[in-house]
């Protein structure tokens, strides 16, 4: 287990591993999301209380669950990056932040759209909503901090510290509906009580679980892809990247064996892409 872990932490091994895994995660994730959302919108019955308005749950709940999971994952990767100084974990931290911010924003927007018809208000300052908004700002802080440093390693490690300190907000978001009397309803699927005694009819629950699982797989695929790009940019001077890039260009030029390297590799490994990333960081080419 440990040797496997260590080998995976080496950038070229990770790159090849991710190259193989990401497409499958993406296909499986999109398929599950597709079926889950389709069943949720058209097959599942309307709710006895909320009617059709409850169907936004099939987007809102996966997004909200991911917003918390991604931040937790970022903090774990951050701890690994800081304790063992592992380059791959640093890349993992900064790669996850924009995805997490997107899911958090999605959870907030869908929550507001759900709140208006059911509660009667788009926004209330209750503990769940406020702490989720704080979570969005924490993500934005990580993204901004990453761009403030010109050295990517320093930037990533600063982000790791911020992720670690900010992670105290995650249990607050999750337990806010239990700790405080809140307008937001309690947990339908993610609490001990709910697991023992399901709070959702099976015909409604199944699509929800599918779209949730799909969202996690989709996140996995996007995260791996972003990490691959991050690794390539950081290691652009390393022999293995040059060898890869050479191979890829060769394959592209002769058009003989396009299968030698995936299209993602060609895209990301050409110098153009590397410079673009530098420009993103505000350093200029």
């Amino acid at each position, binding site marked *: 287990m440990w040797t496997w872990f260590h080998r995976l932490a080496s950038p070229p091994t990770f790159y090849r591993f991710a190259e193989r895994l990401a497409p499958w995660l993406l296909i499986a994730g999109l398929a599950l999301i597709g079926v889950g959302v389709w069943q949720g919108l058209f097959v599942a019955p309307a709710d006895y209380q909320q009617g059709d308005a409850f169907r936004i749950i099939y987007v809102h709940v996966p997004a909200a669950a991911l917003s918390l999971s991604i931040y937790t994952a970022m903090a774990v990767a951050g701890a690994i990056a800081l304790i063992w100084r592992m380059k791959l974990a640093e890349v993992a931290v900064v790669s996850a932040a924009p995805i997490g911010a997107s899911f958090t924003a999605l959870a907030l927007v869908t929550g507001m759209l759900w709140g208006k018809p059911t509660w009667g208000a788009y926004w209330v300052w209750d503990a769940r909503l406020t702490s989720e908004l704080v979570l969005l700002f924490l993500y934005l802080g990580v993204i901004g901090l990453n761009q403030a440093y010109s050295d990517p390693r320093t930037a990533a490690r600063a982000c790791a510290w911020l992720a670690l300190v900010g992670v105290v907000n995650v249990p607050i978001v999750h337990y806010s509906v239990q700790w405080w009397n809140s307008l937001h309803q309690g947990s339908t699927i993610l609490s001990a009580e709910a697991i023992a005694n399901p709070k959702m009819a099976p015909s409604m629950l199944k699509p929800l679980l599918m779209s949730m699982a799909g969202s996690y797989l989709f996140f996995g695929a996007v995260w791996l892809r972003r990490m691959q790009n991050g690794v390539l940019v*950081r290691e652009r001077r390393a022999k293995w990247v040059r060898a890869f890039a050479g191979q890829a260009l060769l394959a592209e030029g002769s058009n003989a064996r396009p299968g030698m390297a995936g299209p993602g590799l060609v895209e990301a490994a050409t110098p153009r892409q590397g410079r673009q990333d530098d420009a993103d960081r505000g350093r200029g080419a």
Partner: protein
Amino acid sequence: MPRLEVHQLVVSRGDRIVVNDLSFSVAAGEVLHVLGRNGAGKTSLLEVLCGLRRPDSGHIAPQPESRERHWIGHKNALNPVLSALENLEFWAALNGERIDDPRAALAAVGLQKAQATRPSGQLSTGQKRRAALARLVAAARPWWLLDEPLAGLDVQGLDLFAGLLAAHVGGGGAVIVTSHQPLPGALATLRSLNLSAA
């Protein structure tokens, strides 16, 4: 004092390797003069030796502990609002060192009372450098790691520095010093290490 052995040291800054596979050793009573053009890695080397920067690989044995080494970088670590005397006393208190006569230490680097008690922001570049060097005199630590200590010093300052070096290595201390120019004074135990050539 054990010999300092540096073995196959690799240091990078950002994604540029600045010190590549460097090995050398320094013994008590020696002065190692580290030479090299700009960007050759002199500053990074000293930062690694003083514990400010982490090497990519290689090892240093034994790494001098913080109470055994004194590093002076490009900046003088003088708060401009406080006087040279107050700065000296602050660093001694921070490091838990007792100075019997801080004024004597400042006098030893050529700062008289008037210069030692006015806000150090008003001192000239050379005087500030002297105020920083006074810390070496005040705290008796065996390892001196000096990065461009001659910058801004006048002729008297250079002589004074040569005297400090000679006294320190004469007393069994060791010095690793970087500079572009030849070190002043004649030291029998002077060795050089050219980073550009390595």
